[in-house]
């Protein structure tokens, strides 16, 4: 990831966290309470040992202290539980917010820009990428604050007991940023390596699964199986070389934490024996000595946890870059230009007005240059012209899916209209579910009626559950013609005044073609406004007006 991209991703994550500050801060707060309770627990424990072992107090007189000990432990557990609860809610809230932003972004970008990414990619953005933020907000971010604050707290308590012991811990403190960098680098490397390997192995594996039929047909299964084994083994060797080095960084952290405990134990032990006669060691008691010993691991614990959660950060940064781009670019897009027209084309008569509109894709000469037209209510307009001349672009402009580079489009976005694109849209589900996409409230009879109008009634009747049977049965899908007719049924169902259709008869068999033509004739007769791109003579005959789109201009044919 280039540094600038990573910075952008970090900023985006920070903005999310600050938008949800209360829960993030509360999570850290609960973690701090747990740490304080732990510090108290260790103190009481050391005190009890001192009283029992050195002062020889009978256990029965110590029960208030035992009560305090249990109380501290209970508080610690309570705070821990609350921390987990807050962390889960915080992450949940943040992800819900990101998903709302995503939906807005998708909506603003419109169907055309969205097409730049595959549907599977977008679904992965929606699900996997947003969920990749979970570990960061639930674990890494609170732990990052705790790994700064808790060691500080521990150090203060240790210093009040024995400044020399605190000095031992403090000596390692300047090293802590170094640790963190080491851990970070190591973890990142491990993470990257691991995911790279997994990715490559998965790639090799999927490559073979995808071609399973071919492998089977050509007797390649044994060879492929062996290759799978040897490739995995080769990757394992390479990865292990890196991992051996990467794991060293966390071993260093482990080493310092172990050595700190050992040094504190030796120092306290020799101090108590009276072998050390400098500084505060003469005043050491079993209480203070044991307390310091018990706190030493707590000094390092937050850092060790942080290193465990480090991969969450890497995953979140990757996702943040992607999601930040998506949600950021949506804000840059100007709102669709649907202001009321001031042109000579009268908006009162026209359902749709294009006023001196130009559109060009950066790499090509302009697709449409300074184009003006009006569509009157109840009119049927055919767009024709060579492929790539801009017919689809014109329809997208009219639909408001594409903002013009200059000029105005008015009329759309004010009320629902019908759209029939080139790729049929069928969801996994029943016929009824597919139809209700555009008319959630429609009753069964209306749905069946719409299907009958596009000649799908016999097909649906033949199914056991009628309109409540699945559109795609196991293995068999809808043919292109059937899918187009299903889309057309939605248009009948929606009863839209304006219908835009992009090549409604392209690639259809004769039967479906005649159904589509009849349907358009019916719509036209019913007084609907139709705009469609076509080359089909029967559709051209149906149109009140035929417009030839050629070299960025409109010609009335």
């Amino acid at each position: 990831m280039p540094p600038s991209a990573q910075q952008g991703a970090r900023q985006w994550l920070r903005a999310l966290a600050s938008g949800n500050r209360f829960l993030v801060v509360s999570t850290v707060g609960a973690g701090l309470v747990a740490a304080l309770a732990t510090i108290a627990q260790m103190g009481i424990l050391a005190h009890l040992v001192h009283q029992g072992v050195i002062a020889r107090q009978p256990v029965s007189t110590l029960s208030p202290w035992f009560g305090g000990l249990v109380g501290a432990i209970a508080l610690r557990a309570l705070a821990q539980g609350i921390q987990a609860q807050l962390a889960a809610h915080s992450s949940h809230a943040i992800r819900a917010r990101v998903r709302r932003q995503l939906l807005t972004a998708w909506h603003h970008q419109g169907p055309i820009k969205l097409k730049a990414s595959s549907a599977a990619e977008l679904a992965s953005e929606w699900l996997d990428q947003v969920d990749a933020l979970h570990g960061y907000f639930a674990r890494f971010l609170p732990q990052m604050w705790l790994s700064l604050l808790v060691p500080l707290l521990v150090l203060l308590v240790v210093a009040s007991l024995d400044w020399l012991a605190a000095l031992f811990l403090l000596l390692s403190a300047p090293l802590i940023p170094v640790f963190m960098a080491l851990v970070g680098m190591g973890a990142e490397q491990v993470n990257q390596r691991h995911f790279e390997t997994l990715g490559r192995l998965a790639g090799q594996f999927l490559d073979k699964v995808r071609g399973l039929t071919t492998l089977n047909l050509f007797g390649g299964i044994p060879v492929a199986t062996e290759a799978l084994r040897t490739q995995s083994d080769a990757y394992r060797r390479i990865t292990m070389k890196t991992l051996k080095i990467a794991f060293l960084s966390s071993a260093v952290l482990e080493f310092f934490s172990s050595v700190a405990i050992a040094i504190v134990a030796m120092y306290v032990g020799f101090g108590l024996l009276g072998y050390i006669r400098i500084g505060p060691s003469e005043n050491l008691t079993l209480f203070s000595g044991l307390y310091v010993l018990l706190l030493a691991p707590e000094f390092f614990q937050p850092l060790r946890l942080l290193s465990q959660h480090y991969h969450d950060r890497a995953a979140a940064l990757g996702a943040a870059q992607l999601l930040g781009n998506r949600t950021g670019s949506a804000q840059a897009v100007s709102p669709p230009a649907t202001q009321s027209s001031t042109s000579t084309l009268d908006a009162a008569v026209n359902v749709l007005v294009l006023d001196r509109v130009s559109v060009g894709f950066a790499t090509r000469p302009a697709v449409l240059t300074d184009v003006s037209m009006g569509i009157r209510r109840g009119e049927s307009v055919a767009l024709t012209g060579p492929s790539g001349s801009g017919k689809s672009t014109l329809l997208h402009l009219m639909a408001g899916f594409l903002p013009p580079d200059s000029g105005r489009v008015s009329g759309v976005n004010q009320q629902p209209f019908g759209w029939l694109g080139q790729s049929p849209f069928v969801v996994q589900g029943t016929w009824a579910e597919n139809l209700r996409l555009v008319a959630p409230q429609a009753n069964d009879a209306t749905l069946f009626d719409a299907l009958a109008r596009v000649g799908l009634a016999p097909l649906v009747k033949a199914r056991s559950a009628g309109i409540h049977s699945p559109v795609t049965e196991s293995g068999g899908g809808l043919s292109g013609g059937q899918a187009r007719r299903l889309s057309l049924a939605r248009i009948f169902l929606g009863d839209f005044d304006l219908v835009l259709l992009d090549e409604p008869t392209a690639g259809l068999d004769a039967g479906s073609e005649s159904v589509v033509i009849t349907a358009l004739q019916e719509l036209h007769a019913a007084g609907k406004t139709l705009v469609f791109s076509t080359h089909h003579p029967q559709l051209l005959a149906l149109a009140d007006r035929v417009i030839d789109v050629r070299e960025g201009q409109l010609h009335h044919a």
Partner: protein
Amino acid sequence: MHELFPWLSLILQRRQRLLVGGLLILFTAISGLGLLALSGWFISATAMTGLLLAAGVPSSLNIYTPGGGIRFFAISRTLGRYAERVYNHDTILRLLADTRVRLFQGLVTAKPDVQTGRTGAQWLTRLTSDLDALDTLYIRLVAPSAVALIISGTVAALAGWLLPPAYAAILAACLLGALLLATLGLFYRTRRLAGARVLSEERIRVTAVAYVEGNAELTAAGTWDFHASQLQNLTGNFSRQQAIVDVRTGWHQAVATLLTNGAAVAALAGGLLMVESGAISGPVSVIFPLLLLGFGEVYGALPEAFGRLGGTIAAAARLNRDCAAPVGAAPAEEPFADANVSPAGACLTLTEVSVHYGESAAALGPLSLALTAGQHLGVIGASGSGKSTLANVLAGLIPPQHGRVTRHVAPGDLAYLTQRTVLFNDTLRNNLVLDGRVLSDQQLWRILALVDLTERVATMPDGLDSWLGAHGHSLSGGEARRVALARTLLTEASVVILDEPFTGVDHATRARISAALAEELATRTLVVLAHDRDALLPTDRLIHLQQARCAV
């Protein structure tokens, strides 16, 4: 839980590695516990000796043995952890290969169902993520549970031996409770949610894909906002389920911590009572509580793993389903008859064969067809007329629901170029010969010349050993098709089926190579299927397929 058994038994084949890895985890855990406990004992012992010395009582303490022990544990904890991580990651990577090979073999046996229904990118992605959940099964779940059980059992037994019975009982109960809460208790409280999550994840993905694809229509119809909020709600529930699992995991972990620390309190109280009665020395009483304080590390990773177990099981169930051999009627296909005794040189005979998908109208047939050895048959049909279905039936990939297929060809004696071009991320040579036969360069070049690829391959730096695919040379659609065609020609099969052999190949090239291909195949039986006559090879006989019906 039985869903995991096939995978656990696969993992357990590496028994020795697992044992060593587990022992390393145990060794590290013991070093960590020992470091703290021994340090505690040492401090208490020196405190008492120091006190005696200060009071003028002659007293001595061997400081070298415990000092050495502390140093040993400090080092062994570090080295143990490092060795454990390296060794166990190596194991994970080995298991990764095992599970993939197992799944691959499973998919091969389950082929008909899987191949027709589930080849999409989404299915493949899901397959990978399901597999990932299983790779770490041992390291995340099995080994830490075993280590926790061993250490808890040992400590409880020692407590029973050393501490007053009542306190030992409290301690053991606390440890048992903590262990159950962190493992099975959490599993039972999250398995349904975690399992449901895995399923609803698939549903959300499908819904998201649908809405994105239908974005234009839905926006136009003014129902986008409605559907967007539905998607948001669906995903919100999914995310809430995860939050619930997380919260339960967190609380179980917290209560487990409470209980292990409670065990430490019981050990301390019991120990101090025994010090009071003079049964044990003060420093010894410190050992148990400090050991138990270190239990956070022993139990720490368990709740996370058991909170996800429900999902892991659901993933395993799906993989088992994908690998399962399809149930249903045995294919209505007779075992192949010997080509030598076949009547009048018959090679492949279809009798009243038809294929249906679900309830929909027949995708093919009913159709009867007799193919004699050495015949070249052309089949023409528009898209959707059942061409590829016919090719699949002829190749034996799908069994017909009705009718009969009689073969006088051995299954391995048939080469089939499927409609979809399949090339692998591998060298050109390995793409041409998939079954590991060793063919001379001369043979390969001859066939490459036949499909007009000589010049193209000659420009690649490594010639026949050039790498194809994502990390190598990218071929155009027509070039890739011709590589697949060359692969088919390179088999020695006596029956060759070509489904749309020239997809993506331009007219000029097609015209150049078509006749030479037919000649190369002159001695073999050939079925070639295409959408129109131009896309065929020259054949002896031609049939037209029309909308699930056959007209000769």
